[in-house]
């Protein structure tokens, strides 16, 4: 009988202790931010989808069309094409398409790239309504930046 009463009293007390904690936190500052009106800074190593890196000297892409990224990709989401042009050493990039619907952001392409011509973007606002919105033409994106 005494144990029963003791349990009721200690049990009720434990509920008040819990309420006390939640009330204390109610008066503490808010820890969330109101996205999209407020955003947090991105970490420098954030791995978004890949994008082509601009060569600072020439303004063009650093890509040498070796196809290593295409081979390294586990999901076959990269398509690279190039052609021989007169007066230019090596191949010239004509197409660099990323199918972001299949990409799993593993970063194996970035690691495999010999001239370091691709890098992660900081893009994360990627909501869309059409599948085509996720087939990125990275060459066009680079040219649009210039």
């Amino acid at each position: 009988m005494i144990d029963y009463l003791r349990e009721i009293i200690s049990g009720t007390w434990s509920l008040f202790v819990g309420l006390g904690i939640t009330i204390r936190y109610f008066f503490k500052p808010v820890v969330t931010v109101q996205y999209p009106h407020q955003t947090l800074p991105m970490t420098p190593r954030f791995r978004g989808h890949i994008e082509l890196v601009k060569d600072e000297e020439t303004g063009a892409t650093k890509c040498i069309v070796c196809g290593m990224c295409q081979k390294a990709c586990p999901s076959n989401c990269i398509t690279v094409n190039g052609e021989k042009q007169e007066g230019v050493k090596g191949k010239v990039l004509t197409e660099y398409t990323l199918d972001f619907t299949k990409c799993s952001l593993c970063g194996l392409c970035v690691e495999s790239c010999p001239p370091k011509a691709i890098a992660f973007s900081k893009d994360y606002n990627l909501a869309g309504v059409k599948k085509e919105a996720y087939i990125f033409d990275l060459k066009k994106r680079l040219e649009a930046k210039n």
Partner: protein
Amino acid sequence: MSAFVQSEANETFVLNLGPQHPATHGVLRVKLTMDGEYIVEAEPVLGYIHRMHEKMGENRTWAQFLPNTGRMDYLHALAFNHGYVAVVERAAGIEVPERAEYLRVITSELNRVSSHLLWFGAFILDLGGFSPLLYAFDDREHILDLLESVTGSRLTYCYFRFGGVYNDIDADFVAGARAFIKRLRDRMPMYHNLVTKNIILMKRLQDVGPISAEMCRKYGATGPVCRGSGINFDVRKHEPYSIYPEMDFDVPVYEHGDSMARYMVRMDEIEQSLRIVEQALDKLPEGPVMAEKVPKIIKPAKGDYYHAVETARGSFGVRVVSDGTNTPYRLKLRSPTFSNLSLYGEACRGMLLPDALALMGSLDLVIPEIDR
């Protein structure tokens, strides 16, 4: 546990729990044969999220399977990364620099804490309490920020590589991790006052869903489930890998075997993981984070290799069979929750439905890892 007497009319009905039920945390379906509020038989039905990870491993190169590992157990992705890279390193004979091993342990222990915090929130949510989830997610967010600053992603990490890790940590990470350890240690008494000592939680968990040590052995249950039943088994202690032998930590074991024991094991494990991170940060050696002579195309010698690691849910083992080519011949993944779920049918026989859901929550199920 409530006494269970089958009614004389022997009338039962089938209750379908899931695959879209919030308490099953994903797409697990359980076929319950009920006698009133009591469970006569429970049969978990799997296969709703089967993605053929094992088969996928057989038709891609060794390195290309890496992103898959983080997508099995999305809550403790780094331990799954670790299990796979460790077995391939064993097969190919790659030596890992010491600093890389330290980074692996630091990041995967932080990941374990984040996994336990998420489990804590979701488990209390199953039992009907909402606020603890918000507090747990507040703490977990700090870990995700820390891990994002070093790995680049927030959930499905792909950070370990054969022979090391993807990139090095900086002073900010070390300072951030130390600050987080202090913060979580200050918050743990709050969690215990708010949740552990709460009379409603105690009544819901104590003596509910007992799992005996014998049942754990029968079904091969590992992790907090078997440690809550009095079996002292932790891969980090009993088949040590990486730098765990140099770390000083305890394996929390509770004898009682009820849902409360499993709850306490995980709460204590948070503190032990923080101890490991603290020690590893103190001892962190200088040096490279990637082995120098890692071949670009990995072709392990012919043979059969196995490596197990301790994840937040138990022992995760990878067995690979190599035929000397650049793709695995066979890849077998032994995932912990599959075994932990197997005992559910036997353990919840004769229980009330709400108690059975408390037991399911205390098993800490991650469905993509069960189905693979």
